[in-house]
């Protein structure tokens, strides 16, 4: 057994990133290092089954009120009413009742939420929330498009999109929900990402993307999303995502019928010069772009 194994919490310190640089470098030289690393990486890919926790909470309430009729937590009919309202009216109901903020093409907007958390909306995005629910209860916002959140510490903060939920306590993260894509990047603290089938917890510098119900993960070092500082950037992103972002930024339409929109792009484009932006993205991908008129472009293979 190697020397490093003798200290009885050495591997624990390594796994949590508490070793000094010196210790790590020495550890990297041992023959088992790669295997230990693969074990941790492999464990990341394993899923813990998820539970419908709202349903479980209802069971707890049922149980409580059955045995002690005096204090039901919330009358049962309230749930029936809430459920039917939600069913009948769906999201439009909430939308009408809520505080809404949205941005147009090429715009960005910084919003101060009721608890002093901050949300920065990217171009052509929308956020809405019901202020009434925030006091002392959970903080929930609905998002269409892309936003960067800086959340103040407090109760659980939840961001919902069509099919995915992100919940956090206090942290900074970016969410992009444009067309069928769901992407979360964690810049600080911990972020939990859930869809119908599974959940993942991200820590600082980790990112996840869900395409067609499968997850892709990667890591990055940026302190804030680049789009808040005048540039959009991508890591192995589907081309369609890049094109949608271009359209929203510059208020143009891009005709994609002649190219493969599933190929991946890594790189960025600037927000203040359309010619430069098109040049950076499409030259790199060997795609030809032609202006049909002032604000529509057609793509073709070179």
């Amino acid at each position: 057994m190697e020397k490093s194994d003798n200290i009885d919490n050495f591997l624990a310190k390594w796994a949590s990133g508490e070793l000094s640089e010196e210790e790590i470098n020495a550890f990297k030289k041992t023959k088992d290092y790669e295997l230990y690393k693969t074990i941790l990486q492999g464990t990341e890919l394993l899923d813990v089954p998820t539970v419908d926790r709202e349903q479980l909470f209802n069971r707890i309430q049922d149980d409580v009120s059955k045995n002690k009729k005096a204090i039901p937590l919330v009358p049962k009919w309230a749930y029936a009413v809430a459920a039917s309202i939600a069913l009948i009216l769906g999201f439009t109901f909430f939308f009408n009742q809520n505080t809404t903020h949205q941005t147009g093409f090429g715009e960005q907007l910084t919003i101060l939420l009721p608890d002093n958390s901050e949300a920065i909306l990217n171009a052509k995005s929308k956020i809405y929330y019901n202020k009434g629910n925030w006091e002392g209860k959970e903080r929930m916002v609905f998002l269409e498009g892309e936003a960067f959140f800086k959340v103040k510490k407090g109760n659980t903060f939840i961001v919902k999109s069509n099919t995915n939920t992100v919940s956090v306590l206090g942290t900074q993260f970016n969410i992009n929900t444009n067309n069928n894509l769901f992407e979360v990047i964690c810049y600080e603290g911990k972020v939990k990402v859930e869809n119908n089938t599974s959940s993942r917890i991200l820590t600082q510098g980790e990112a996840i993307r869900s395409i067609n119900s499968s997850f892709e993960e990667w890591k990055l070092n940026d302190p804030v999303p680049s789009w808040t500082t005048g540039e959009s950037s991508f890591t192995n992103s589907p081309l369609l995502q890049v094109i949608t972002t271009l359209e929203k930024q510059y208020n143009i339409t891009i005709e994609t019928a002649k190219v493969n929109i599933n190929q991946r792009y890594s790189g960025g484009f600037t927000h203040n010069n359309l010619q430069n932006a098109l040049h950076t993205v499409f030259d790199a991908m060997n795609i030809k772009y032609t202006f049909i008129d002032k604000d529509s472009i057609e793509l073709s293979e070179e």
Partner: protein
Amino acid sequence: MPKKQQSVCEEKTFKMIYDNHSEVILNFIYYKCGNMAQAEDITQEAFVKLWRNCKKVLFEKAKSFLMKVAQNAFFNDLRHEKVILKYNQQSFSSIGYEYSPEFLLEEKEFMIKLQRCIAELPEKQREVFLLSRKDKKTYREIAEIIGLTQKAVERRMHLALLELREKLGQAI
């Protein structure tokens, strides 16, 4: 602290405690018994008990109360299964798309072995290992959940990794 005495009997506070702690209790029990339905039963039992005792349990103590009740309930329950975490084959790591088919096959085999080795870990090591790696809890938080010292938690984590290396080293 804006509100000095939060009462657990208050519906809002109770729901908040549920939202903040139910998941870690569920997972913690699941890592012990390998059966989510059973973990749900035990979690339900713990919260019902908390509600019944809401006048006696201080808000700050609610979490450790829940943990204790859940662990006791678990000890009284003898249904135990293997803890096999699901391996979602469609989700690859960041660099996955560059890998060759041979690598992916190897990865799949490795993952199956890893699942089995985690299932075969002693329960005390497994719960620490998974709370740390899957729930991303710090060793201090885990110590609080299990009711041990942080040092003991770190030792279990160390042993878990040693054990996994040993088993997987043989398998490869």
